[in-house]
């Protein structure tokens, strides 16, 4: 069997590793536009600050692929897929054929349609080159503006602080990390972020990025103008779809897959940031890992692993602020109970969302001693109703509930 994987990110590499370990593929080839051996993308933050030297970005030694008999073709983009002939065309004009094809082509940074976003000095962070460019400019910049107060925007802003900048973070929604936090938690987080040297403006909309060739300022809808010689936009990502669309595979926000990670062509799989399952593209690593496992199992014909979706969990890393957000944190509809805890100093905030006797969402900010217990209570679907009045009281820790099962 000849298996081709397009994409050398965490999704593609994990599919390749599992297939290589199983020994079922006679030939296993990875094509990648990027010229680097596999690196975990979150490490771009450390590359940006200079804490990680560029040569240390690769996760594995050079012979990692060889030892597994994985043929990796770096800097080699795939331009088209011919499904009838089971053949791919490379950007350099070459061809290759497959029995099974895995699309692990990831996502790209999205830039909202802001006038002037094409000016020099406006960047997004997704690749090694992005990190090096932003880091170099941040060290010289007088005024840095970060558009987007989500997870990546905050991680990036804290990295810019480490480069010596005092970035202004602009978030259009009424609070920071709107997907992962509620209003109360975001207020606690905002205080922690500002104490570290960034400025936060929520509920503001960017109207235009002003300058000549290069950015000079950012104008808000209110008319206010913020000086800027570097603008970093963190407004989320969009799946890379072109290759799949041109091959006639069904796509929505991502390439649509079933619980076996198959696209509508049973010989073509999609995993990671490019894949959409049940209407969702999470674009986070735990999802990529789970999907890679299933796709590899299906291709190897070993076990009938199905992807059932995972409860999304995100953790802020570089800020030195402990924040984990899991599942549904801002319930709107139906019956639910919210339990909150905040310490007197205002540095710790925790919330649990309970539906139908089970925890479906959690915010753990400023203290991570409960993270594992909450993950277990959620993934095991533990009935917490008997404890509901004693949650967050002295004498009952969440780990106690786990241990009582």
């Amino acid at each position, binding site marked *: 069997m000849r298996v081709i994987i397009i994409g050398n990110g*965490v999704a593609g590499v994990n599919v390749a590793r599992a297939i290589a370990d199983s020994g079922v593929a006679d030939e296993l080839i990875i094509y990648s536009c990027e010229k680097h051996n596999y690196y975990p993308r979150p490490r771009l933050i450390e590359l940006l600050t200079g804490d990680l030297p560029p040569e240390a970005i690769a996760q594995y*030694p050079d012979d990692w692929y060889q030892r597994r008999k994985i043929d990796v073709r770096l800097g080699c983009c795939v331009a088209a897929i011919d499904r009838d002939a089971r053949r791919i065309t490379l950007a350099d004009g070459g061809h290759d054929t497959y029995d099974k094809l895995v699309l692990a082509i990831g996502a790209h940074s999205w830039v909202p349609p802001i006038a002037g976003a094409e000016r020099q000095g406006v960047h997004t962070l997704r690749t090694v080159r992005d990190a090096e460019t932003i880091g170099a400019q941040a060290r010289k910049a007088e005024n840095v503006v970060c558009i987007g107060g989500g997870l990546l925007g905050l991680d990036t802003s804290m990295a810019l602080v480490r480069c010596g900048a005092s970035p202004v973070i602009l978030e259009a929604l009424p609070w920071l990390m709107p997907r992962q936090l509620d209003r109360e938690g975001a207020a606690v987080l905002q205080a922690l972020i500002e104490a570290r040297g960034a400025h936060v403006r929520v509920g503001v909309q960017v109207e235009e990025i002003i300058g000549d060739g290069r950015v000079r300022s950012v104008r808000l809808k209110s008319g206010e103008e913020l000086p800027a010689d570097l603008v970093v936009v963190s407004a989320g990502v969009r799946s890379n779809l072109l290759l799949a669309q041109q091959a006639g595979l069904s796509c929505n926000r991502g390439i649509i897959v079933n619980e076996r990670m198959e696209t509508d062509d049973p010989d073509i799989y999609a995993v990671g940031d490019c894949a959409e399952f049940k209407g969702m593209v999470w674009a986070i*690593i735990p999802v990529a890992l789970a999907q890679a496992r299933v796709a590899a199992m299906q291709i190897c014909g070993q076990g009938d692993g199905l992807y059932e979706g995972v409860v999304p969990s995100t953790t802020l890393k570089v800020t030195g602020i402990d924040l984990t957000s899991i599942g549904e944190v801002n319930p709107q509809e139906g019956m639910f109970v919210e339990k909150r805890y905040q310490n007197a100093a205002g540095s710790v905030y925790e919330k649990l969302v309970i539906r139908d006797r089970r925890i479906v969402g959690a915010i753990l900010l400023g203290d*991570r001693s409960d*993270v*594992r217990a909450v993950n277990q209570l959620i993934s095991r679907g533990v009935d917490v109703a008997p404890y509901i009045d004693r949650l967050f009281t002295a004498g009952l820790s969440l780990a106690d509930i786990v241990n009582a099962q």
Partner: protein
Amino acid sequence: MAKWECLVCGYVYDPDEGDPDNGIEPGTAFEDLPDDWVCPECGAGKDMFEQMD
């Protein structure tokens, strides 16, 4: 020896397996990993791991 889980991505460090790709022999306890060892999936540092029971 205990397994440890990465809070960022869910990767589990199993001391019985070690992390041979990154030069860590099977049988190495999590506590004995070098300080600059990082999660092979997401690059998070050792401080982002929690012990599993």
